[in-house]
């Protein structure tokens, strides 16, 4: 198995991640941008949510501006609207919904609008409205907003009487305010005329003609209108029957749009877009929201408090649970689109490579999202796509991939239990357990051999998850074939997985006979090594066990038998977040991985119990008391935060120890001919820079062969280097009696060559 670096940055190959339909179908699952329930219910499309936010913030001017956007006569609407928005307020599910009309009124009472008229040029075509009713009044206002030169023919003598006749019952103050607004509009009023007579005399003067409903019926008895567009096509008259304030206002909006279409010599039904109320697919959780009652709005302060009850309905279920989405501050739909574009660009910077490689691929979002949006799947497909087109850099994943090759190479072991020609089981502890808790794995294997009938083989290696997570599908395929061949050699026994991620991965590879060690332990009962001790603990479910209720329940039962008093935490079970190891985040983006770990640990102050060794290790690294279930079962502690070299050494050491103890095979230690020591600073730097002790040793071996080194006079240290694979490693050392003391090590991927 080989891992190859991408050849060049000048690769113009490109492959689409999804078809357009698939992309849209995926994006369509995300309801983050769906309108809130109140907005969706308003045919006039008032942005209720934004208005409530403005009032809550005391910004009544903005609230008024938002409200005036939907109607030319806000006083009439605010007092007479039937308010379907209020009926759809999400808070009504708990207590009383927001008094939205009160907020509208408060915007009118305390907000002021900026001075200045419209900057739009007046339109060429002129318009006239004949006759007065609420619809025609609203329509006149809408047409003025659209900058049509406007004439209004009515029997009334002034603005106030016109308003009062159109909106009977309007309080005096509101009527006066509306009349004031009306008088300020650029309308040529033809007061005191007979609208029907005026129509016959004057209609030829106008390009657009509208009429109040009663006037229209008198002009053309029995006329028929298309209510959807408020037009009588037969007579070219904009009119229609409306009832109620909101219906009149909405009718006027539809009619005004029809006027635009007619002015453009189009059919009024042409390209109208989405009108009126809309259906919303928004999901909003009311978790943590207390039921509350309306606050009577009497002044600015009470209006702000009532608006403050608004929960600003939105869906961010996935973001709330995921440190990765929180880090990039993007919701799945937009993230998917940006990733899709990133994969599609041929030249230039691929700005989304980091987010693509930072996702833990854990699938938590798919559980939290009401529609099952799986961001991990999108990132995984993107990784595979980039690998296939040669655009995926190797650097972020190389260390992990090399680790997998090490696990399935030098450190790999596949043996039948001594004394058995055929084994019923094979124990597969996983690469992280052998790296972090080799003693625990040893105890577990010995216990299984002792108590299970039929023989238990052992397979130390990696399930291939690393190659799969990195999107290296060819390498993953080779790993699957390799494991399958090795399992066949053992007689295809039932696999006892030590890690839920391995179990999941091996299941996906077609291994049918597989159980977790926890299920076996439940059957056999706990071994003598298990110590019962009452201790309160927080259980962290492994992301590999998502959707595996059997595993989750089994772990809880064993934990209870061990005396663990499990505290319920948020996001447990199927909703569990990843510890930061999954998807190789730990290697590709340490910052995001740390945020993921913090997110896990933020759920409880108690010591953490986990059943994935990677989780156990990451929690311990953050300073939290952390224990793996098998440590308690076998009374054998894992190592405290082994560094990257120790993790490899542990795997190799376990293999050699078991070979010697169980199969009587002694592995001869390789004599290098020199000793290497490290300063504590060097060890720390090497762990941070992902440089293994085995890398350093290879560089020093090269030094001994070539004699190539440089003396730094400033520090008195020697520096040597060697290119190993895709990386040049540099070692700073001093000589000791028996070999070398390493003071520092660093590396770079660039090749450096002489030039003439």
């Amino acid at each position, binding site marked *: 198995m080989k891992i190859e670096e991408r050849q060049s*940055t000048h690769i113009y190959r490109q492959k689409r991640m999804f078809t357009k339909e698939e992309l849209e179908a995926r994006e369509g699952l995300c309801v983050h941008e769906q309108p809130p329930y109140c907005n969706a219910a308003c045919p006039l499309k008032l942005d209720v949510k934004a208005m409530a936010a403005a009032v809550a913030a005391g910004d009544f001017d903005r609230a008024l501006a938002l409200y005036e956007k939907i109607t030319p006569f806000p006083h009439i609407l605010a007092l007479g609207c039937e308010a379907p928005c209020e009926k759809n307020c999400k808070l009504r599910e708990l207590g009383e919904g927001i008094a939205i009309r009160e907020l509208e009124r408060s915007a009118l009472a305390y907000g002021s609008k900026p001075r200045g008229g419209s900057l739009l040029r007046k339109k060429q075509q002129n318009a006239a409205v004949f006759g007065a009713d609420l619809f025609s009044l609203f329509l006149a206002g809408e047409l003025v907003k659209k900058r049509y030169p406007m004439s209004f023919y009515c029997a009334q003598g002034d603005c106030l009487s016109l308003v009062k006749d159109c909106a009977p019952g309007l309080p005096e103050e509101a009527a006066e305010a509306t009349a004031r607004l009306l008088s300020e509009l650029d309308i040529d009023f033809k007061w005191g005329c007979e609208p029907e007579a005026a129509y016959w005399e004057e209609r030829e003067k106008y390009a657009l003609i509208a009429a109040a409903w009663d006037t229209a019926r008198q002009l053309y008895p029995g006329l028929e209108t298309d209510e959807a567009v408020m037009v009588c096509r037969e007579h070219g008259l904009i009119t229609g029957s409306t009832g109620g304030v909101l219906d009149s206002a909405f009718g006027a909006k539809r009619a005004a749009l029809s006027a635009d279409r007619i002015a453009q010599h189009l059919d009024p039904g042409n390209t109208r877009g989405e009108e009126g109320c809309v259906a919303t697919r928004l999901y909003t959780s009311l978790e943590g929201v207390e039921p509350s009652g309306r606050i009577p709005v009497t002044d600015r302060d009470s209006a702000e408090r009532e608006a403050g009850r608004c929960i600003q309905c939105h869906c961010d279920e996935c973001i709330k649970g995921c440190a990765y989405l929180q880090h990039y501050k993007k919701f799945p739909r937009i993230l998917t689109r940006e990733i899709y574009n990133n994969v599609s660009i041929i030249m230039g910077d691929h700005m989304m490579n980091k987010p693509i490689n930072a996702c833990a691929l854990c699938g938590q979002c798919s559980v939290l999202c009401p529609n099952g949006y799986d961001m991990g799947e999108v990132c995984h497909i993107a990784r595979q796509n980039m690998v296939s087109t040669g655009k995926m850099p190797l*650097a*972020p994943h190389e260390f992990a991939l090399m680790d997998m090759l090490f696990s399935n190479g030098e450190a790999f072991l596949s043996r039948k239990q001594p004394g058995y020609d055929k084994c019923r089981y094979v124990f597969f502890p996983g690469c992280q357990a052998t790296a972090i808790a080799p003693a625990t794995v040893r105890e577990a294997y010995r216990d299984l051999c002792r108590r299970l009938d039929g023989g238990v083989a052992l397979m130390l290696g990696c399930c291939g998850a690393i190659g799969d997570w990195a999107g290296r599908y060819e390498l993953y395929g080779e790993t699957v074939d390799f494991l399958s061949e090795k399992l066949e050699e053992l007689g295809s026994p039932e696999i006892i997985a030590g890690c839920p991620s391995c179990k999941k991965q091996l299941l996906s590879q077609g291994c049918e006979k597989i159980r977790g060690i926890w299920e076996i332990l439940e059957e056999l009962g706990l071994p003598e090594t298990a110590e019962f001790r009452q201790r309160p603990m927080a259980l962290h479910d492994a992301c590999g066990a998502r959707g595996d209720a059997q595993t989750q329940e089994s772990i809880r039962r064993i934990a209870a038998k061990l005396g663990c008093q499990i505290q319920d935490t948020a996001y447990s079970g199927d909703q569990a977040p990843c510890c930061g190891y999954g998807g190789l985040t730990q290697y590709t983006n340490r910052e995001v991985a740390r945020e993921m770990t913090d997110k896990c640990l933020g759920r409880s102050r108690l010591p953490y119990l986990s059943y994935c060794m990677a989780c156990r290790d990451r929690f311990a690294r953050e300073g939290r008391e952390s224990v793996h279930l098998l440590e308690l079962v076998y009374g054998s502690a894992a190592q405290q935060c082994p560094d990257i070299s120790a993790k490899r050494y542990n795997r190799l050491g376990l293999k050699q120890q078991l070979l010697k103890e169980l199969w009587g095979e002694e592995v001869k230690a390789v004599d290098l001919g020199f000793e290497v020591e490290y300063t504590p600073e060097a060890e720390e730097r090497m762990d941070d820079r992902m440089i293994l002790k085995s890398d350093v040793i290879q560089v020093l071996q090269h030094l001994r062969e070539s004699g190539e080194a440089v003396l*730094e006079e400033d520090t008195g240290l020697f520096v040597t280097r060697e290119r190993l694979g895709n990386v040049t490693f*540099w070692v700073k050392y001093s000589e000791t009696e028996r070999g070398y003391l390493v003071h520092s090590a660093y590396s770079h991927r660039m*090749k*450096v*060559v*002489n030039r003439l």
Partner: protein
Amino acid sequence: MADKNYYTIDPEGRLTCMKCRCKLQKGKAKFMYLDNGFPVELPVCPQCGFVYVPEELALGKVLSVEKALEDK
């Protein structure tokens, strides 16, 4: 045409090649990565041609250029 150099380090006699027992001098070198080349001037052994890349350079400029190229 004058040579373009992205980076220059003069060892100023403070580095010695242990193989050739001579001082490293400012010399022409080139960083190569993913089919891209960057001419630089680094401490080079005049005899064996050993090119020295200091720690600060490897972890600073070189790393940032590597990362930028990886996202191309």
